[in-house]
């Protein structure tokens, strides 16, 4: 018997805005000036938020923080494509998505400062709080997508994760279910090339992460993750497909983490300066700014005004964050179960007495 080819695959790469700030008109997603400027404003907001977080950490006003610099386009493009009724399941490097979904910046600072109230998502926002264990939130997103399908709700779900998560079992288990049951979900992988100190080449021997979708029976696409227009287009198409009942999509946003893994990490131990320099040239903010200058005469004065405005917003959020009264430690017992158990009631009383004694001593 002669051998025959039983399946063949291809993975497309989508880029609309190149590194010089020029767009491919044939792929243009039909955005207007206001929307484009809104994208840029959001990207500057996230960069400002992030820079402030790093400063706060250095000053001891924030605990360990995971920086998002370099990944703003992936987050703004995704968030812009989502509807408020859609659900999102972030990993821990998507503050941009959460902010644009409506999570007060104060709460993100609160979370990274060690205050659990930062994870209390507002009632009108269908978002999950960040997940620290890598990739384990992917099945949760799949479960929510399944529940939406079960109830007949016209919503889609977006799950965010990094390249490291694609090495984990829960990534594969989640994608497999999504494929088998044709669930309304979009998997958004921000391939930032490093999982702490381990490079992409140690996460996978595959040529792309997008192609992993093929194994689960649905479409995978690679997009330039530093191109906000490409990310927006890919995510929007995938969400619409999901809402039409046509199943999941895996989107690999090809991007880069410009900063360290977290404030507890020193990327210079494992990453070449030249590599970072190459990616700095691809900075999503620089690229979109070049486009604005070319298309809309964006000036240095516009830039300065925007930066100032975003700094004021962030400063206000820091002020709010630092004005929040401390959390009563006794609340640690209150929300473990719907009704506290006898042991928890006893232990809460022990802490109450301890706190009272401490207060009396002071």
């Amino acid at each position, binding site marked *: 018997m002669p051998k025959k080819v039983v399946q063949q695959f291809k993975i497309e790469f989508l880029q609309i805005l190149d590194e010089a700030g020029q767009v491919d008109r044939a792929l243009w997603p039909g955005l207007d000036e206001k929307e484009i400027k809104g994208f840029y404003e959001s990207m500057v907001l996230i960069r400002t938020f992030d820079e402030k977080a790093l400063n706060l950490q250095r000053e001891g006003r924030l605990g360990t923080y995971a920086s998002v610099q370099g990944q703003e386009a992936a987050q703004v493009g995704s968030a812009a494509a989502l509807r408020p009724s859609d659900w999102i399941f972030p990993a821990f490097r998507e503050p941009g998505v959460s902010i644009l979904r409506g999570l007060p910046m104060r709460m993100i600072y609160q979370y990274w400062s060690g205050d659990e109230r930062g994870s209390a998502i507002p009632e009108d926002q269908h978002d999950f709080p960040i997940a620290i264990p890598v990739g384990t939130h992917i099945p*949760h997103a799949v479960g929510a997508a399944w529940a939406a399908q079960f109830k007949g709700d016209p919503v889609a779900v977006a799950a965010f994760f990094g390249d490291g998560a694609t090495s984990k079992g829960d990534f594969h288990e989640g994608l497999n*279910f999504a494929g088998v049951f044709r669930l309304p979900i979009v998997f958004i992988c921000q391939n930032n090339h490093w999982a702490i100190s381990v490079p992409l080449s140690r996460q996978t021997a595959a040529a792309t992460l997008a192609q992993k979708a093929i194994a689960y029976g649905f479409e995978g696409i690679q997009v330039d993750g530093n191109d906000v227009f490409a990310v927006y287009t890919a995510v929007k198409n995938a969400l619409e497909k999901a809402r039409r009942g046509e199943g999941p999509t895996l989107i690999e946003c090809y991007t880069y983490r410009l900063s360290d893994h977290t404030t507890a990490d020193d990327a210079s131990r494992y990453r070449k300066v030249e590599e970072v320099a190459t990616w700095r040239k691809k900075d999503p903010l620089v690229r979109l700014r070049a486009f604005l200058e070319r298309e809309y005469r964006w000036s240095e004065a516009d830039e300065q005004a925007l930066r100032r405005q975003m700094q004021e917003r962030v400063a206000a959020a820091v002020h709010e964050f630092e004005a929040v009264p401390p959390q009563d430690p006794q609340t640690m017992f209150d929300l473990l*179960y719907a009704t506290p158990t006898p042991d928890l009631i006893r232990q809460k009383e022990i802490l109450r007495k301890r706190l009272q004694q401490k207060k009396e001593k002071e």
Partner: protein
Amino acid sequence: MSKLNVVQAINQALRHEMERNPDLILMGEDIGRDGGVFRVTEGLIDQFGERRVVDTPLSESGIVGIAIGMAAYGLTPVVEIQFMGFLYAAMEQLISHAARLRTRTRGRYTCPIVVRTPYGGGIHAPEHHSESTEAFFVHTPGLKVVVPSTPAEAKGLMLSAIRDPDPVIFLEPAKIYRAIKEEVPEGEYAIPLGEARLLTEGKDLTLITWGAMLHPTLKAADRMAEKGVEAEVIDLRTLSPLDSATIIRSVEKTGRAVIIHEAPKTCGLGAEIAARLCEEALLSLEAPVARVTGFDTPIPLPKNEKYYLPDVDQIVEAAEQVVGF
């Protein structure tokens, strides 16, 4: 009322709750057409359809993780893991996510899931099919752990587990799935979680146990009675939250306690109970608290499992030592 075994009683409980709650969904490997490896879900797919009784891919972490997302969205997932030894693949989902979803989101999202799994030895099963590692789950704040010991108990506790607003690990003693039949109330019959039951009253000794071990313990109590020793037998039913009050009250009365479980001895739940008795009932104790348990080994393959599992003789021997101290 009809006489049912544990498998039939749980099946009845699931059917009852599925009729009551249209958002209840069953998920697991082989639970649909096959009715589950122990046939607990038999016939449910015919009544409720593939949409609500879902044969999943082979994927323990996936199943539990997905149930968490479903629950947060508003469904009531009840999942089956084929054997307790396969539940370890989903430990991260249970410990890192299910158990803390309510607390870490300050009540914004909750996780009302039930994870059912057969557990325990004595069924001559292959490796990894006879685990009794309930202490892992009891040690995890945020989970509830329930172990029924008879058919009626299984039905009543399952109804409450499904209605509980928090994640429940429901451990079904495989040894007694079909070994006992008893009258099981039809329809509405819920036993509250968190309350142990006192089966026999006595003044000399308290025997504390749960699950399949209740049955040799009751036999041991009968044998002690023949010798004139009156034992109280406590079936814990819910291991977490633990009903300390019932245990302490009994031991304050009898002054003596033996804890019987088939799990390994070290850091088994017996250790916790003994410690609580020392902390809270020391002056009532007339003898050291004894434990009759499995060894600190993996449960052996079938040919040796009878040497591992506690039996009536061992319980009687421990009880005699405690009484004669």
